[in-house]
């Protein structure tokens, strides 16, 4: 038996040069084509400059050259893993501007789709965050479940990722006859996997060691940087647009706003941001179950309120909704013609990413990857 040997290293005396390192743009841990110019002192991050725009597809320029309904497919391609949620604020705002009253059943279907898509988005977020920390198994479980949601959306709209399902004034199609049963089955399965993931990932000692006390984002900094969604709620701010400014029919449902509490370490660390996502999946399940129970059973013409020709009055408005990643808003200016004068997207990930240089200085480069993963960014939305 050999004795355990301990090395005494005085890290203060280890000499290293400052070095600039490119993380990305082609790297799995950057969650897309994001380039981080990182300055390192040994392994400690001293400066970060994010470079974005590799996926810029001129959404705002395109939107000025197409009619109002034609904007929706472009919106799908912004945050391409939660397309249903992306369409929500746009159609809500347009309906407000045009003064359209949407049938009740359409409202319910929209809420169910948005919540299902929220679950799918959070599943990807948690799963890939697990991958970043080296946990591979939850990734497989979550993607298996996500497949069920994607298949359901495929039945609804024909698309697996980009749906164009919400129309101004209605929906593309009514739901299929077994929609309610399918949803309930998904909810059951999602809950089961989530319970497993709590044990497998969230309360796993290795994962907690990697994420607790890392990337601490205090509440006032988060607000000043305009963060929203799980990033803001992870810092303990109960700000959820579904609760504070209930749009559509969200005031009819009973659900809680999940906030981080600093259970494993300091309030607002990576672990808190991630547990908010895990627990929000349960809240979404609650909303879906209530919505299915309350939804009118008889078939309805979901296109009855869709206007034939969309020509809104001269005006401008800012409409927003709670995306899985945070607050997504559209600032739309209309000059009375069938094409918008200006569509400005307040992209959630764009704003959330801007806090990265603030919260990741002084941590190791391995922690930087964790902090980036905990922000849950999608480059399609950042670059638009």
């Amino acid at each position, binding site marked *: 038996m050999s004795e355990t040997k301990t090395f005494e290293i005085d890290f203060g005396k280890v000499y290293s040069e400052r070095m600039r390192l490119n993380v990305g743009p082609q790297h799995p841990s950057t969650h897309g084509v994001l380039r981080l110019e990182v300055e390192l002192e040994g392994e400690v991050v001293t400066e970060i400059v994010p470079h974005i*725009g590799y996926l810029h597809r001129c959404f705002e*320029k395109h939107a000025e050259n197409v009619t109002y309904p034609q904007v929706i497919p472009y919106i799908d391609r912004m945050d391409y893993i939660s397309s249903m949620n992306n369409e929500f604020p746009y159609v809500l705002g347009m309906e407000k501007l045009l003064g359209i009253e949407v049938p009740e059943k359409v409202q319910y279907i929209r809420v169910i789709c948005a919540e299902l898509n929220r679950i799918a988005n959070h599943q990807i977020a948690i799963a890939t965050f697990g991958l970043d920390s080296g946990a591979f198994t939850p990734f497989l479980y979550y993607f298996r479940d996500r497949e069920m949601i994607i298949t359901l959306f495929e039945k609804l709209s024909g698309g697996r990722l980009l749906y164009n399902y919400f129309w101004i004034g209605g929906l593309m199609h009514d739901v299929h006859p077994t929609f309610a049963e399918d949803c309930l089955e998904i909810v059951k399965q999602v809950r089961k996997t989530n319970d497993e993931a709590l044990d497998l990932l969230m309360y796993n000692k290795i994962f907690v060691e990697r994420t607790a006390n890392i990337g601490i984002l205090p509440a006032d900094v988060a607000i000043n940087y*305009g963060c929203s969604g799980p990033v803001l709620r992870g810092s303990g701010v109960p700000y959820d647009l579904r609760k504070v400014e209930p749009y559509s029919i969200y005031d009819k449902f009973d659900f809680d706003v999940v906030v981080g509490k600093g259970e494993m370490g300091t309030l607002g660390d990576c672990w808190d941001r991630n547990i908010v996502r895990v627990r929000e999946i349960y809240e979404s399940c609650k909303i879906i179950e209530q919505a299915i129970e309350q939804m009118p059973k008889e078939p309805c013409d979901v296109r009855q309120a869709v206007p034939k020709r969309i020509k809104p009055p001269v005006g401008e408005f800012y409409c927003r909704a709670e995306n899985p990643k945070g607050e997504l808003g559209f*600032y739309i200016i*209309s000059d009375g013609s069938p094409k918008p004068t*200006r569509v*400005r997207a*307040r992209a959630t990930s764009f704003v959330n990413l*801007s806090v990265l240089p*603030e919260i990741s200085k002084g941590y190791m480069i391995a922690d930087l990857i964790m902090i980036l993963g905990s922000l849950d960014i999608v480059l399609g939305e950042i670059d638009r």
Partner: protein
Amino acid sequence: MNPKDIFELLKKEIGDQALELVEKEYHDPFIVVRANSIVETCLVLRDDPNTLFDYLVNLSGVDDKDKFVVVYHLYSLKHRHRIVLKVYLDRENPHIPTVERVWRSANWHEREAYDMFGIVFDGHSDLRRILCPYDWEGHPLRKDYKTPDYYKGIKVPL
């Protein structure tokens, strides 16, 4: 607070720098402010205990044909009210002080407005292009922007 009270408060604090309050049909109520007093206005709105606009929701540049407009959407997490500020800028020489020191989220929004419209935010810590390549010429969201025929010798497809 409703927009009228906010406007009255601004009138009291910064005098005639707050030009007018516009409440029209199909418009969110907005207050027009002079460019050189935007930082002062924002500080008043952020720090006054009755308004506490601690959250800059959105900052957008707009090309309004003969003028550029910078639009600020503000929200208060405590009072849960909102207001829109608008600043009209000269098209030939669009300059406006940065509000980056009031809300840090303005940093990237202002970089985007600079990138897309060429609006210069004086005092900004890092005013570079953000979405277009750093060597891009022109500002794409201006209404008079012409798509170039070539980019670095590569033909731009239509």
